[in-house]
C-alpha cells in the first residue's frame, strides 16, 4: 500500500483513458475495469503515483484503459518489470494485471518469486480458465479433460490451485473475488491495496466467447449460495441459501456440516485471516466437489517487504561506511605513482 495524500478528490472519470476499450462485448473484463475505475478514487492515491503493469493476453490490455502510468509488457514478465519499478521508486502504487496463462504458465517462475520476495505490489489475476487472445486453448487453470482447440481429446494436465500456489510461494496476502460480484470485488480491491506486501487477488472472470459459464455455479442466482463460502474475518464460516451450512474442523480435517441440531454456529470455524494453516485448508476447497468455493481474503499477514529491506540496507551501509566516495574507491587497493 502507498500512503494516501491527495490535493483534490479524484473521480471515476479521472481514471478513464481516451482509448477505446476493445474486449469482446459481454466479457467479464468490463466489470473488473469498471470496479477498478470506481474504487480507485476512494483509495486516495495521487493518480501520478499509480502504475499498471501487464503481460500479454486479453486482461493485459487493461493498462491502456486506465489514465495512470501503464506498461503493457511481454508474456509472463509483468512481475519482473513491476519489481524493477518498485525498487527504482518504492513510493509508487504498483499493480500487476495478469491472466491465468500469463501468470501461471509462461510467467509461473516470476509469479512465485514475486510472492516470496514480498514487494509491496498488487497482483490482480483475471482467471477465466482459458486462453482467450489466442482463441481458445486450455490454460493451466482449466479443468482436467478440457476439450479445446488444442486438446480435442481432452486436456491431460491437472489445473493449478492459484491461492494454494501463492501460499506455497510464501505470499502474504491471498484473496479471491468474482467479476459479477461488483461490491465484493470493490471491497477486495481495497483490501488488496491496503495490504503492504505482495497482494494476490484472483478474480474469476467469465470469457463469454471461449469458456462461457465456467463459473456459473458461483454466479447463477439459483445455486450460488450453496456453492460459495464468503469469508469474513472473525466470523464463523456459514454458507448456503438458507444459511444453514458451515465449515467444521475435526482436527485439521475440514467438513461441511448442517446447522440442524447436532452442530450449531459455535461449532464452526471462525475465519482468522492471519492463520496460514487455515489459509491452506481454505485454498484446498478450490476445485473440490465436497466444499464450497471460498471467496474473500483467505490469508493476510504483514511481513517486511523486499524494497524496505533493501532501502534499509542502503541506509545502514551509508551510516556505517559513510556516503560512497568514488575518488576514494578508484584509489583503493594497491596503487602506485609514475612520475
Amino acid at each position, binding site marked *: 500500500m502507498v500512503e494516501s495524500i491527495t490535493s483534490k478528490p479524484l473521480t471515476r472519470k479521472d481514471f478513464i483513458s481516451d482509448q477505446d476499450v476493445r474486449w469482446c462485448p459481454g466479457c467479464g473484463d468490463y466489470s473488473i475495469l469498471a470496479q477498478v475505475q470506481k474504487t480507485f478514487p476512494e483509495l486516495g492515491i495521487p493518480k501520478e503515483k499509480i502504475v499498471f503493469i501487464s503481460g500479454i493476453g486479453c486482461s493485459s490490455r487493461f*493498462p*491502456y484503459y486506465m489514465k495512470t502510468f501503464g506498461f*503493457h509488457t511481454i508474456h509472463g514478465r509483468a512481475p519482473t518489470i513491476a519489481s524493477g*519499478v518498485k525498487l*527504482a521508486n518504492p513510493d509508487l502504487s504498483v499493480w500487476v494485471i495478469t491472466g491465468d496463462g500469463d501468470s501461471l504458465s509462461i510467467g509461473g517462475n516470476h509469479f512465485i518469486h514475486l510472492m516470496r520476495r514480498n514487494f509491496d505490489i498488487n497482483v490482480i489475476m483475471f482467471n477465466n480458465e482459458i486462453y482467450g487472445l489466442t482463441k481458445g486453448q486450455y490454460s493451466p487453470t482449466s479443468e482436467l479433460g478440457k476439450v479445446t482447440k488444442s486438446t480435442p481429446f481432452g486436456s491431460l494436465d491437472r489445473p493449478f490451485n492459484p491461492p494454494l500456489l501463492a501460499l506455497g510461494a510464501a505470499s502474504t496476502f491471498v484473496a479471491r473475488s468474482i467479476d459479477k460480484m461488483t461490491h465484493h470485488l470493490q471491497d477486495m480491491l481495497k483490501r488488496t491495496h491496503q495490504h503492504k506486501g505482495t497482494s494476490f487477488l484472483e478474480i474469476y472472470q467469465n470469457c463469454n466467447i471461449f469458456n462461457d459459464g465456467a463459473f456459473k455455479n458461483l454466479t447463477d442466482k439459483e445455486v450460488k449460495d450453496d456453492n460459495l463460502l464468503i469469508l469474513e474475518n472473525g466470523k464463523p464460516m456459514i454458507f448456503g441459501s438458507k444459511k444453514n451450512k458451515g465449515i467444521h474442523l475435526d482436527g485439521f480435517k475440514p467438513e461441511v456440516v448442517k446447522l440442524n441440531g447436532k452442530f450449531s454456529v459455535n461449532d464452526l470455524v471462525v475465519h482468522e485471516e492471519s492463520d496460514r494453516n487455515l489459509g491452506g485448508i481454505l485454498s484446498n476447497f478450490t476445485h473440490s466437489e465436497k466444499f464450497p468455493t471460498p471467496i474473500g481474503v483467505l490469508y493476510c499477514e504483514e511481513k517486511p517487504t523486499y524494497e524496505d529491506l533493501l532501502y534499509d*540496507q542502503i541506509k545502514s551501509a551509508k551510516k556505517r561506511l559513510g556516503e560512497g566516495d568514488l575518488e576514494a574507491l578508484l584509489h583503493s587497493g*594497491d596503487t602506485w605513482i609514475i612520475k
Partner: protein
Amino acid sequence: MMKNQKIKNKEIINVESVVIRFAGDSGDGIQLAGSRFTSATAIVGNDLGTYPDYPAEIRAPAGTLAGVSAYQIQFSSKDIYTPGDMVDVLVVMNPAALKVHLSDLKPGGTIIANKSNFKSRNLKMAGWESDPLEDDSLSNYKVYDIEISRLVSSALEDMNLPSKTVERTKNMFALGLMFWIYTRPLEPTIKWLKVKFKSRPELVEGNIRALKAGYNFGDITEIFPVSYQVGPAPLKKGTYRNITGNYAIGLGLLAASQKSGLPLFFGGYPITPASDILHQLSHYRNFGVKTFQAEDEIASIGSVIGAAFAGNLAVTASSGPGIALKGEALGLAIMTELPMVIINVQRVGPSTGMPTKTEQADLFQALWGRNSESPMPVIAPISPGDCFYATYEACRIALKYMTPVFILSDALLANGSEPWLIPEIKQLSPIDVKFAVDPGEDSVFHPYERDKETLARKWALPGTAGVEHRIGGLEKENITGNVNYNPDNHQLMVNLRAQKVESIAREFPAMDIYGDTTGDLLVLGWGSTFGAIRAAVEKIRDEGMYVSHAQLRWVNPFPSDLGEILVKFQKILIPELNTGQLIKLIRSEFLIDAVGVNISTGKPFTKSQIIEKIQSIM
C-alpha cells in the same frame, strides 16, 4: 631493499620482457599466486598484461588434466599490449599442469616444478608414462625440480597446522621464489595476507613463512645463480592501479551513476564470466546502488526495464546463453525506447560451450539476436582498462538517445588485467539527464515526441503529475505513443528507430590509426583483440612493412570515417575470435574484399598468429 637481501656472489641480469605462467590444480591457489605476482609487478612500475585461464569445474578431481588452472603474466620495461605468446617460465604444481602447458613453453625456457607431486599416481593420471623430471623428455628446457610440499612442511613444522593447511601454502612458496627470481617486493603480499586472513592469525603466519621460505630458497641455495630485473615501463604520469575488465565495468557504472545523478540499478543472474560484476556492485550499498539477483535471466532484464521506466540508471550483465534468454525483453526495451545498458561478457558457445574460455562470437547476436528490426548500439571495449570508459560511454549514449546499449566484453577482458591510470572524475564528459514535465492543463503529454537532434523521446517518470502515459510492446504511433497498426506509421517507426541508432555515430571521435593512414595493409579489429593486433603490427612495422592498425570500439553504428579509411589501403585484414562476423559486416557495408584470420580455440590471439597471417598475405 632487494639488493640488501642479496648474497653478493649472485648476479642480477636486466631483461626487457618476461612471460611467466603459474599452473596447477584448481585448488592449488594458482589464480591467487598469479594475481599477487601481478600486484607486486605493477608496483615496481612494469607494464603488464595478464591472462587467467581456469576450468569451469570448481574442483575437478585433483591431479587430472581437466582440473588444471593457470595464470599467465607478461611484464615489461616497455609498453606492452598482451599477456604474451610463448612462456619463458612455467611454474607447475603437478604433472597434469606440465602436460597441459608444456607446449606453450619457449624452447630453452624454464620449468619450476613441485617435485613432491610427481608421484606415480599423479604421473599416470596426467598421462606421463615415466617421470619427465627423471627421464630426458625435458632436455630442451631448464628444469628446476623442487620439493615444494616438503619444504613448506618443514618451514611450518612447529606450527601444528593440519597437513592440508600446510599443503595449501605451497602456492606462496612458489610465489616467493618467483619474487626472488624477478626481484619483486614481498611487503605488499605480506600486507595483503594480514588483511585477507585477519581472523585467522595462524594462516597469516603460515602463508608468510611459506612465502619467505620460497624467497630465501632462491636467495640462499646454489640452484639459482642469477636473478632478473625488469625495469619500470615508460608509462604516462599519474596514479595507477591494476584493473580487470569486469572490475572496470563496475567502476564505470558507478561513475556514470554519479555523473548523471541517477541511482544505479543492477538486475542480474549469476553466469560465468559475468557474475563478478554483480558481486562487485552488491558491495556498493553506501553508493545507493541497488543490486537485484533475479530468479532468472529474463527476470533480470525485466527488472532492468522496470527500473529504467521508473528513472534509474538500469543495467544488466550476462553472457551469451543469458543474453539469448533476454532477447524478447530487449525487443521491448527497443520498442519502448528506454535507456539501459546490457553487458555481454562473451564466452565460448554454442549453448553452454566452454564457460570460462574466451570468444568474440556474439557480435551477430548483439546486432540481430531479436525478432524483427530491432537496432541497438553496440560498443566493444578494447582492453581491461578501456572497459571503464566504454561502460561510461554506453551509459551516456543510452541516456542521451533513450536507447538500450550493448557492451560486448569477453572472458579475456573480464579476467585479464593491466596497469590502469586512474581517471579524474571531473574530466569525464558530463551526462545530462532531463525528465519530462507537466505540459500544463490545456496540453496533452506525448511520450513519443522526439528531440530534433537526437530523436530521443521524452523520459516521463511515474510519479510526475501531468505526464501519465501508457507504453508497451505493441507498435507505437509516432509522437502520441498510442497503439497503432497503420502501415505508414510502422514504416516511419522502423525508420526512426534505425535512424536514431545510426545518428549516434556523430558522437564518435575520428578513428585512431596506428601507422600510416594509407598503405599496403590495414589490420582492422574490434574489441579485445586490440592488444594482440597492436603488438603484431608494431613488430611488423619494425621490420619495415607498411602495415597499419585500427580498432573498432563502436561496432554499431560504424564510425562515419570508417569507409574512407578502408579504401586507402590495398588490403584489409580482420582478425576475429570467431568464424568471421565483423568481416561480413565490412564486406556487405563497404563492398571491400577483406581477408579474415579467425580462430575458435577458446584462447586469445597470440601476436605470432597475426604476424604469420600478415606475412602470408603481404
